Every structure is written in structure tokens, then in C-alpha cells.
């Protein structure tokens, strides 16, 4: 593919810039988000107008969505889920700007998001239940526990793997389709695919945060 914008932003050896471009782009996403949130929260007003209005709309919609999925505990987990949502959505959309690439188009970025969710799940589960959290792993019948523990172990490890592979696969596949269309007919033809990519970016963000919420609320709930 063509040279990424990272080459021009950083005075680096092109080999290093090529190898670590997803890291630099993830840092760029973080800088963008930090700057925007600083600009928005710098002067908060009771009666919002302008950019504060827009962000209050986005955040209250996100919180309503979380209440729909998680129930009454949603506000406690809003910092984690909200940051994940903003990071993943911005990363997905960044790849649609020519010259940039999606940080989520690399398995390492998505895996790190999913691993954070994995550890948060078990941290909150352990915090909610204490040592009884082990009942989530032993299953309903006591003498079947030696059989159930490996099965539960596998099914807990599956969660971050499937989360990261789904997000990575969708974004990477979309970029591959875009790149091949653009190589064939660069003019009008890739445009419908780009609209499709915007849709995919939103849907994958929603799926990721929804599954994170489901996993966290499953481990906070009582064992079945």
C-alpha cells in the first residue's frame, strides 16, 4: 500500500515508521480524543450550546444504551465502556481518511482492548462476590466441577479472542476491499464501499461495547 501519513508527521526511519504505524496512529487517536475532550470540558455551562450540546447528546445516548443493556449499574462502568467506545469509533473512522490507517486494523490494538475488558470482567466479578466468584466456574452440580472447570476456562478465554478477531477482521477486511477497488477503478466506484465502511465502523463499535457490557454484567450477577 501507499505511504502512510505517519512518514510525514514524524521524522523517522521509514522502516520503523512502517513497522510501528499502528502504534503511532493509536497515539494520534488518543491525542485527538484528549484534545477534543479538553476543549469541550474547558468551559461547561448549565444551559449548553454549541459543541457541549453535541457531546452531551452523544454521551446521554450512550448512557441510555448502557442502561438498556446493563440495567441500573450502568453508570459505574461508564468510564471504561465510554472510553472504549470513543477510542474504537475514532480508530475505525480514522482509516477512511486517505493517507491514514485504522489502528483497529491490526490485531494487537484490538487484542489490547479485549484484554482490558477480560481483566476488568474478572476484577469486577471478584470484587462483587469475593471468593464465591469461583462458583461461576464450577457449574451448578458439585461433583461435575472437575469437568466443568476446564470447559469454563476455555469459554472464558474465548471471549477476548472472539472480541478482538471480530473487530480486527471487519476493519481489516473492509480496508482490503477498499484498497482493491481503489486499485481497479480509483474514481467513483469505491464510494459506495466507503459509505458501507462508515456503517461497519459504527456497528462494530456498538457490538464491541455491547459484548463488553454483557460480559461484565454476567460476572457481576449471581452464578446461575
Amino acid at each position, binding site marked *: 500500500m501507499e505511504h502512510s501519513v505517519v512518514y510525514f508527521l514524524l521524522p523517522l526511519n521509514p522502516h520503523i515508521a512502517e513497522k510501528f504505524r499502528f502504534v503511532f496512529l493509536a497515539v494520534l487517536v488518543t491525542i485527538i480524543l484528549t484534545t477534543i475532550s479538553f476543549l469541550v470540558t474547558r468551559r461547561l455551562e448549565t444551559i449548553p450550546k454549541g459543541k457541549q450540546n453535541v457531546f452531551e447528546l452523544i454521551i446521554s445516548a450512550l448512557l*441510555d444504551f448502557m442502561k438498556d443493556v446493563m440495567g441500573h449499574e450502568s453508570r459505574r462502568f461508564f468510564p471504561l465502556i465510554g472510553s472504549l467506545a470513543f477510542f474504537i469509533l475514532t480508530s475505525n473512522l480514522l482509516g477512511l481518511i486517505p493517507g491514514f490507517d485504522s489502528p483497529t486494523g491490526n490485531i494487537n490494538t484490538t487484542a489490547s482492548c479485549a484484554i482490558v475488558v477480560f481483566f476488568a470482567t474478572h476484577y469486577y466479578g471478584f470484587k462483587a462476590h469475593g471468593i464465591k466468584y469461583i462458583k461461576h466456574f464450577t457449574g451448578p452440580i458439585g461433583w461435575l466441577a472437575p469437568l466443568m472447570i476446564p470447559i469454563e476456562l476455555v469459554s472464558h478465554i*474465548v471471549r477476548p479472542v472472539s472480541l478482538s478477531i471480530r473487530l480486527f477482521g471487519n476493519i481489516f477486511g473492509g480496508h482490503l476491499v477498499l484498497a482493491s477497488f481503489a486499485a481497479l477503478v480509483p474514481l467513483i466506484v469505491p464510494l459506495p464501499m466507503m459509505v458501507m465502511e462508515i456503517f461497519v465502523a459504527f456497528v462494530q463499535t456498538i457490538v464491541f461495547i455491547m459484548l463488553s457490557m454483557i460480559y461484565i454484567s454476567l460476572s457481576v450477577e449471581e452464578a446461575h
Partner: protein
Amino acid sequence: MNDDREENDKEGNGLYRQMGSLSTIGINLVVATLVGFAMGYYLDKWFGTKPILMIIFTIFGVAAGFKIIFEIINKK
């Protein structure tokens, strides 16, 4: 924000939650088998018991995949 809604859906079993969990069935069945196989493969490498743990953990992986599906479907 409308805090009175919190009383209504305390369970949090909304439509979105069901749609989200149902959409994971396909990939989970595949990934569970692969994760089981990978765990068995690397444990075999570690202990030097070439095919035994691989077979056992692949079966565990398949069982875990079906257990995930069973839990999703069985939820009220």
C-alpha cells in the same frame, strides 16, 4: 437524564442484549474449538505428552462452544 427508567428495567434484559448475544453464536463456536485445540497443543509441548492433551482439550473446546450456545439460548 431520565432516572425513572432505572426502576423499569432492573434486569437489563433489553432487546439489544439479546441481539448482541445471539450475534456471537457463530464465531464463538469456531473460536472455542480453536482455543481448546491451542491450549492442548501448547500444554502438550510443555509436558511432552504429544497427542493426549491435544485431543482432550479439543473435546473440551467443542463442549465449551456448545455450552456457550446453550447458555445464550436458555436465557429467559
